[in-house]
């Protein structure tokens, strides 16, 4: 039988019924084997005797005098033989599935000594999601801001899972304290002084009733005494912090204290919480956010979503990876003032977010390095429409829109200390219009599997791209042109050829295409199986800017594609371009026909595209590019 990994440590001083209730709930909601050690701190009401006589399956240790919580825990730990300990107050009520996330977290993070659940009140509201320690030595529970996995200054030992080795390494709870208060704060600082970390895992929640076993006058006296001991023991640690007293009058200090331990704090601003399965550039935004997250797990990464679009559904996945997600902010300037002076870096995506959010937010963050990350040059799309529109009024409208967007983008690049583009072509334009900005190129990471299906197992053609449920998007124009001008002549030569249209939120015009030769598949959880089963990817796009991620995904799936010069921008196609890029529908039909009928050429193109993908769009290349972006923001390579 596998021995238990964890010992629950309780210290009692009276409160027999609470201890029994706590252990009952523990038995009910804990699915892994465990041990229990109760140290009774000489309860005057006979709790110790009763527990010793009646508690089965637990070790009861009785102290001869009330030495308090820290000493009781130290005694109990000396009798523990498991890898992990969990300090538990008797007024904690554990809930279903509470322990597994905490154990999984410690297994994944060997540098973490202790992890805490969120303590909630009986009404379900957050009581304590970790705490902050002020420069005055007082602590305050974090019951503000979004919940997400993060390193904390201090987590209460009311419910705390700790590695026994780490606890012993730092000497356990200090014996310098009176019977209660501050000994756990001291433990956190000792762990940190020895290179360990303490984290909060919001996937775990327990209810904390807060039944103290001392009178309030006695509690105040103990708190005062132990506070004095604490400030005497940690003067250097406290010297650089803001005080907790008066925190409500200076709200920005709350965030300073909460993020005190982060090696850097970055704020990323985009339209919505990224939903990579919906296209619209969200896949790349997610990749950039991931790069900031992975550069240092202790860094504070805050994602500011301008729109609340599906935030409730998507944000939890980011929060579990330690990303703070903020949405629903009406007054960005005021929001930033509340966090004044907090951020080291502000990254803004898309020109409208620069004007409406980035600039007002940055005003209260004068210390921050400003980054404008251009997933595409937005003014190019109306310029392309201007080039193809025939109606004079329509052309004028496109010209005005292009002018406005161009000016916004010039302003954004000029405002930024660091600019990021997805291709060298766009970076070249930026260097010209904003010579003061440091321009970097970071495109998109695509994983190329060791093997991809060959031509034999593939059939038909596919169109891949999101439609946003709106008419006149670049992808809608492209699929309509494919269905009306490319597919019919192609089907004359290949009568059995079918088209599958894959992409989220198809518009009414796209849905209307569904028929015998065209299947509108819509959104799929993972497009790769469809890309790996198609023979050709055809996207005759006239409008668009930047690198089209759909083609990078296509390359990674070993799927040759046919597109326009606009579609092929920034893809490093080299010699393959003459087989893949056609300016007119007639040219595209010819290119498609050749690839559908020439297996040797198809295979050569597939291998060529895979090589291009490995060379220019691999995760390693993207990681390097982002590392350079971070270095330009004065962020060193992470641990």
């Amino acid at each position: 039988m596998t021995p238990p990994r964890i010992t629950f440590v309780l210290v009692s001083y009276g409160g027999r019924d609470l201890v029994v209730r706590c252990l009952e709930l523990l038995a009910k909601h804990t699915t892994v084997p465990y041990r229990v050690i109760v140290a009774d701190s000489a309860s005057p009401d006979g709790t110790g005797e009763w527990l010793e006589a009646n508690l089965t399956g637990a070790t009861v240790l009785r102290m001869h005098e009330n030495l308090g919580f820290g000493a009781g825990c130290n005694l109990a730990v000396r009798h523990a033989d498991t890898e992990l300990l969990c300090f538990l107050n008797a007024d904690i009520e554990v809930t279903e599935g509470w322990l597994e996330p905490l154990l999984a977290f410690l297994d994944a993070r060997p540098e973490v000594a202790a992890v805490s659940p969120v303590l909630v009140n009986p009404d379900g509201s957050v009581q304590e999601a970790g705490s902050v320690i002020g420069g005055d030595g007082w602590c305050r529970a974090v019951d503000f801001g979004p919940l997400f996995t993060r390193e904390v200054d201090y987590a209460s030992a009311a419910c705390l899972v700790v590695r026994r080795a780490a606890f012993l390494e730092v000497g356990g709870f200090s014996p310098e304290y009176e019977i209660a208060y501050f000994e756990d704060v001291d433990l956190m600082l000792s762990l940190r002084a020895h290179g360990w970390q303490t984290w909060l895992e919001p996937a775990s929640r327990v209810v904390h009733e807060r039944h103290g076993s001392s009178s309030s006058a006695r509690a105040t006296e103990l708190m005062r005494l132990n506070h004095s001991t604490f400030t005497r023991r940690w003067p250097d640690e406290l010297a650089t912090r803001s005080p907790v007293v008066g925190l409500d009058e200076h709200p920005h200090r709350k965030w300073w204290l909460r993020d005190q331990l982060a090696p850097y704090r970055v704020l990323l601003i985009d339209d919505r919480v990224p939903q990579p399965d919906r296209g619209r550039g969200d896949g790349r935004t997610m990749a950039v956010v991931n790069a900031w997250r992975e550069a240092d797990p202790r860094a504070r990464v805050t994602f500011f979503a301008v729109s609340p679009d599906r935030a409730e559904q998507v944000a939890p996945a980011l929060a579990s990876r330690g990303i703070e997600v903020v949405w629903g902010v009406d007054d960005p300037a005021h929001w930033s003032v509340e966090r004044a002076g907090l951020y080291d870096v502000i990254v803004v995506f898309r020109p409208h977010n620069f004007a409406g959010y980035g600039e007002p937010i940055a005003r209260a963050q004068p210390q921050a390095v400003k980054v404008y990350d251009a997933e595409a040059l937005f003014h190019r799309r109306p310029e392309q429409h201007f080039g193809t529109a025939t109606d004079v009024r329509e052309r004028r409208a496109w010209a005005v829109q292009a002018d406005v967007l161009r000016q916004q983008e010039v302003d954004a690049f000029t405002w930024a200390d660091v600019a990021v583009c997805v291709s060298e072509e766009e970076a070249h334009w930026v260097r010209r219009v904003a010579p003061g900005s440091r321009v970097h190129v970071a495109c998109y990471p695509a994983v190329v599997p060791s093997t991809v299906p060959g031509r034999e197992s593939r059939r038909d053609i596919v169109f891949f791209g999101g439609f946003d449920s709106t008419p006149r998007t670049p992808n809608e124009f492209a699929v309509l042109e494919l269905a009306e001008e490319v597919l019919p002549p192609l089907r004359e030569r290949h009568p059995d050829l079918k088209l599958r249209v894959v992409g989220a939120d198809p518009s009414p015009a796209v849905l209307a295409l569904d028929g015998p030769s065209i299947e509108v598949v819509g959104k799929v959880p993972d497009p790769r199986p469809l890309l790996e089963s198609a023979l050709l990817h055809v996207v005759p796009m006239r409008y668009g800017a930047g690198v089209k991620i759909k083609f990078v995904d296509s390359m990674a799936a070993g799927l040759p594609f046919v597109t326009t010069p606009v579609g092929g921008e920034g893809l490093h196609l080299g010699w393959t371009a003459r087989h893949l890029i056609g300016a007119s529908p007639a040219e595209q039909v010819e290119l498609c026909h050749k690839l559908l009928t020439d297996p040797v050429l198809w295979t050569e193109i597939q291998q060529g595209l895979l090589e291009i993908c490995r060379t220019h769009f691999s995760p390693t290349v993207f990681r390097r590019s982002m590392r350079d972006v971070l270095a330009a923001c004065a962020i060193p390579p992470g641990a």
Partner: protein
Amino acid sequence: MPGRSTQSGVGAVAIWTSADQPDLGDQLPGRVIQQELLARLPGWRMSLFATEGWRRPAVADGGVVIEPLRDRTPEELAAAATLTVVCTADPYALDLAARLDATHPVVAFGPVPANLATRAAFVVPGPNPGLLLDRVIDRETLPVRVAQLRQLSEMPVRDYEVTAELPENLVFEDRLAMLSAARRVVTEDEHVAAACAWLGVACRRPDGSAFEFAPVSVLKAQLDRIAELAEHTLAEQGGDLTTRMSVLAEENHALRQAHWQLRQRMLVERQRLAEPLGQAWQERDDANAEAARVSAENVELTRRNEELAARLAHVEQELVNWQNTKLVRWTRPLRDVYGKARG
């Protein structure tokens, strides 16, 4: 049950111990070797093994994760590590070590059976690793532990000698704390004696003879040699030392870039701070000048006020003097009558 150590590292060293047993001699060598090698091979994975490992948990193991050797084949164990260090006298482990693939480097500590001695890359004869506890335990935590143990009545409050074996079920750190506070230790255990030497506590055998240890530098040199062997083996196995060099060079470059940008940033921030400061200083100087001018005016006004007050006092005095002349006093009745007559 903890998972097997699979975290990526530059390379991996497996340290076979008897740390699933409670004695100081079981707990101490593996921990010292682990920390010393980690200091020489940063980024490497150092895993502790013992015959039963975590299947035989003990208070003494202090919660350190020890992987079990039993049920794992020599092939699996050799594949999981670049190099294996054996510091146990456990027969099962010694036999298993002798059966590891001949190409897998093994370094053994202390006296080992002949079959393992001939198969090992080299054998470290000593001195005892307990002389090198600096990286295993923080000396500053020992007085805290002593205070705790005394608070819990688990240790004498007064001066004491350790003359018998310490209790078996004692955490490694507590064992060292108890030794550290002793006036004198009498033991036959070489590990205890080595720990006492590191702690600076007098230690003798029961017959009164002292323990003799080779200089610590000998042990350090042997640990250097193990680290070199590990790196050499990794390179020979097609390990990524070269790649690692290039990765480090890249990281170093990025670090320099970030450092440079940080310096630039500090300069910018300094300038941004200095701008309003400069303005504030100018405003302060202007205010000081204004205050000085007002102050000078005030002095002048005070002076004029005093002058006028003096003149007034003089005139008032003149008036009083005049009013006190005989002419004015004696003529007052006449002037009063004259005034009434004029009506």
